[in-house]
């Protein structure tokens, strides 16, 4: 379906491709190079034409036909969230979550810092569908690049006819504070901790009103969908993932924090080649710190699509691809990540408070080759008890990482269990542990 189309060249027809920011073949990342800073409104409109004029129903239909899945990690179709909110009592609230609490992920940071108008235009369109009078842009307080770019973009945007009221919210840092219910709760009562709720946020948020929390990348895709039409946007994806997707490369790559846009069906190997790798690494951490390890040679041939990833027990998550080189120790790196994640518990739910330190201690003991047999027993027992026990899925995510570590690095586990620490156990961590901030 094509509604009001911008000029033909506005959204490049996509085959399989990999582009970085500034490449004209991109869809979200096309436009000026990073050295030029945030894209101005003038440049944005020159490039894509003015925002298409569509009714609420038409925008909703385009979003539904596009099949856009949320890009914050959950992958829930946006149109269904919108449908739930519209069918629930009360005036819906829209929050665009730009806080990106995953320390190694940079996609939302990059998008907000360099393409702020894409995010704002998409958010305005979602607000139109919801009939939301106000849109909250939620950021980490310390996220300088996105903050300045979005503030400036809002000034440039002014208040065109029908635009919602924009509010920028600055939340605290921390891994779980970027979780959707924590963001909604922060906006309502100033506490950035996950919320226990028996109903989805889109039906009833902490304020009692339907609350749609949408990731920055998701909002930006909405702008692309409306400019080029749902059909073309969809075609830039793959069978199980409609539309293009952003991923962040981390770990042993040429430039950790590089964000790449993928159109069509592309294998993880092809993506890693663009990051300077020539051969499969030892392993790849897919989807974020609470993600899944995949053996390098397996990952190399796997297309970055939900269907192929789920066959390996992985998900796209936040789009993070972390590279573990040969010679590094997957158990040692995982132990550091589990330790970080255990420290990031909100401290609200008993099982998370008591269980995560057991996992962290166990992984550390295993990595150091001390008491490995006992450590493994504790880890296994805790990993069975934790899933589904918290208000949010934080403990489930840590268990996922631990389980895949034990599986993928099975041979190393056997060595470590025999009380031998590996040479790499005391080196510099491969992955970052503080929220990403840019060169600005």
């Amino acid at each position: 379906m094509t509604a009001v189309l911008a000029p033909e060249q506005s959204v490049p027809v996509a085959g399989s491709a990999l582009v970085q920011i500034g490449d004209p073949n991109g869809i979200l990342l096309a436009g000026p190079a990073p050295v030029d800073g945030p894209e101005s409104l003038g440049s944005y409109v020159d490039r894509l034409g003015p925002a298409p004029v569509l009714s609420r129903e038409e925008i909703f239909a385009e979003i539904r036909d596009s099949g856009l899945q949320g890009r914050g990690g959950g992958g829930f179709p946006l149109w269904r969230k919108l449908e739930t909110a519209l069918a629930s009592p009360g005036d819906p609230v829209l929050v665009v979550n730009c806080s990106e609490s995953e320390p190694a992920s940079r996609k939302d940071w990059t998008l907000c810092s360099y393409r702020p108008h894409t995010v704002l235009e998409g958010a305005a369109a979602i607000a139109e569908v919801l009939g939301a009078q106000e849109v909250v842009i939620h950021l980490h307080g310390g996220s300088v690049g996105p903050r300045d770019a979005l503030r400036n973009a809002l000034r440039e945007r002014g208040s065109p006819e029908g635009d919602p009221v924009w509010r920028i919210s600055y939340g605290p840092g921390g891994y779980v504070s970027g979780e959707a219910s924590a963001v909604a709760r922060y906006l309502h009562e100033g506490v950035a901790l996950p919320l226990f709720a028996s109903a989805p946020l889109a039906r009833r948020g902490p304020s009692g009103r339907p609350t749609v929390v949408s990731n920055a990348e998701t909002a930006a895709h909405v702008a692309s969908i409306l400019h080029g039409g749902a059909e073309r946007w969809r075609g830039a994806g793959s069978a199980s993932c409609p539309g293009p997707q952003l991923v962040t490369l981390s770990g042993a790559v040429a430039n950790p924090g590089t964000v790449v846009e993928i159109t069509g069906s592309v294998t993880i190997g092809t993506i890693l080649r663009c990051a300077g790798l020539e051969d499969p690494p030892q392993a790849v951490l897919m989807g974020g710190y609470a993600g899944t390890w995949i053996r390098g040679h397996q990952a190399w041939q796997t297309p970055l699509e939900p269907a192929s990833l789920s066959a390996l027990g992985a998900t796209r998550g936040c789009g993070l691809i972390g590279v573990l080189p040969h010679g590094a120790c997957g158990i040692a790196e995982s132990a550091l990540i589990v330790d970080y994640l255990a420290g990031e518990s909100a401290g609200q739910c008993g099982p998370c408070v008591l269980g995560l330190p057991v996992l962290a201690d166990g992984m550390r003991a295993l990595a150091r080759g001390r008491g490995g047999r006992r450590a493994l027993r504790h880890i296994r027992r805790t990993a069975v008890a934790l899933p589904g026990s918290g208000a949010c899925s934080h403990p489930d995510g840590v268990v996922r990482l631990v389980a895949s570590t034990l599986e993928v690095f099975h041979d190393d586990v056997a060595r470590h269990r025999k009380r031998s620490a590996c040479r790499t156990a005391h080196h510099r961590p491969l992955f970052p542990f503080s929220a990403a901030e840019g060169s600005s």
Partner: protein
Amino acid sequence: MKVVVHVDPTRCRGHGICALMFAEALELDHWGYGRALEAEHEGRRSVVQARRAQRACPNGAISFTVAEEMQPAS
């Protein structure tokens, strides 16, 4: 009349009384915190038990919904 029981893990402090009040719907986990079982519970008796469990919790962690009315009881 279908009863669904919820435990708010942010409030639960592991007193464990709920599992005594409505053993068919609630169990205690590895650490002794309350946890709702997946099973479905029907009938007026289940509503009574759910209410008992809810009232017995010193931290107000238990809530339940009755599917017919879709009214959250708190």
